[in-house]
């Protein structure tokens, strides 16, 4: 079996995580890889814990659902409680700093990062927390190239918000750099 990366992005409905999942997958396509994106639907996706899943692979992808993620992001406590436990032993967990993680959680890398606060204070809009998170994820893991990520973001966001999103992406990368020091 070829190595494929399974990613899960979770939070509350409206935080833009499904958009973030689509952007990550589209960035992977720009890197000439394969990608599949799926998401939770229905009442659970409205306000409660919502998730988007992405699989990235060099080869074709058969089974489209994530079984054991290599990377999980959670932006809310509810989403974290629901989804954070499923992580491969060599995987990466990234959560907002507001989240309390179970002490038993085992992963190669566990990061608690001020994602939402950075979006509010340094970019000026909480709504771009998803883009800050994308910069952070890619800065930490390099799962897609930075050029492809920016191009994918620019293709998905509303016209007129390019500068705002570029700043959010930059702040995400900066967060990653401070963690890696």
């Amino acid at each position, binding site marked *: 079996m070829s190595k494929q990366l399974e990613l899960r992005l979770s939070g509350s409905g409206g935080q833009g995580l499904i958009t973030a999942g689509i952007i990550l997958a589209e960035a992977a396509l720009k890197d000439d890889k394969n990608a*599949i994106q799926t998401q939770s639907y*229905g009442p659970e996706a409205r306000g409660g814990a919502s998730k988007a899943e992405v699989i990235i692979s060099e080869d074709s992808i058969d089974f489209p659902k994530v079984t054991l993620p290599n990377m999980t992001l959670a932006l809310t406590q509810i989403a974290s409680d629901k989804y954070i436990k499923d992580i491969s032993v060599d995987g990466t967990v990234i959560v907002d700093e507001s989240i309390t993680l179970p002490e038993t959680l085992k992963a190669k890398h566990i990061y608690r990062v001020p994602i939402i606060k950075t979006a509010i204070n340094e970019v000026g809009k909480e709504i771009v927390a998803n883009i800050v998170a994308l910069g952070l994820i890619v800065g930490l893991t390099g799962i897609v190239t930075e050029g492809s990520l920016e191009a994918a973001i620019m293709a998905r966001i509303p016209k007129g918000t390019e500068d705002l999103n570029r700043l959010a992406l930059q702040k995400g990368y900066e967060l990653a750099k401070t963690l890696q020091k």
Partner: protein
Amino acid sequence: MAKKVKFLQGNEACVEGALMAGMTFYSGYPITPSTEIAELSAERLPRIGGKFIQMEDEIAGIAAAIGASLTGAKAMTATSGPGFSLKQENIGYAALTEIPVVIVNVQRGGPSTGLPTAPGQGDLMQAMWGTHGDHPVICLTPDSVRETFDLTIRAFNLAEKYRTPVILLTDEITGHMREKIEIPDASEVEIYNRIKPEPGSDYKAYKVVDGDIVPKMADFGSGFRYHVTGLMHDETGFPSNSTKNAGILMDRLMAKITDNLDDIITFEEIETADADYLIVAYGGTARTAKAAVKKLRAEGIKVGLFRPITVWPFPEAALYKLSEQVKDIIVAELNYGQMKLEVERVVKNNAPVRFCGKANGEVLTPEELIQKFKEVL
């Protein structure tokens, strides 16, 4: 030339395929998990001079599509289980009146309103037997976003060619997942259009002429006057109680499918050449089976996959041939064994037919299928 690569949901690819096939009319009643098909059709059709109508219910949704097709439009409606039940009467009407129409059923968990946002494959038999009376059925089942695009085009082509309703039976898995899809140029895609009578020609609406497969179809409103009825009818289209006539009509309706199985039936075989064991799966569950076949092959187990793409008419000949070669067959599907029954019927006693399925709204994982495979084989 720049390739037109997109990242689409299966439901979106269905609309792209329909538009490339020449769809100019969509009528329906939005229902999860098919809603994106209505949504995107509503956005796109007006831009190309087509029509989108949200009807008052599912019955009207298919009725309007049948009416539009009668005027010459290529028409589609999409739904899920509860709406598919409501459309059954009109599917039979379109079959007997020989009006091309494409019906998409993005299957969810059922029965009744069931699990709106979860996948299921419980409508397989309903696609064949849902409407009363013997009637021709063509039903296609994709397992990827790209194949959803291709099979939507094929559904329109077959509907036009055989003048019959064609059911595209997808599921929440393929309908909602997003995958890379390279949209071919229109020049690379084969499109079939119904044969129409020459203006001014002597026309009998239900008479097959010129060695055609089906009667030529005049657009309503184009000057040809004829009668359309769900009663048994003669070559003029007017009702007829003659049993002789009814026999001729029924034979012709059934034969247009059974005489052309090679044109209608497609299937995929993976790793079957040397297979001792066979997995049969279709639609979204075939993705589970493909992953399972790879893992089992990596362990040295000689297993292959048979995937019906045309599920109705069922690919009997190809499956029968494989059943003479393999020791054991396992059918994987999201129901209580609907295709399993069909596989048993076809393979007779050539090989035992086992079953791996669930109907609780979850997808079947490759691990679950492998575990079941090892348990029973």
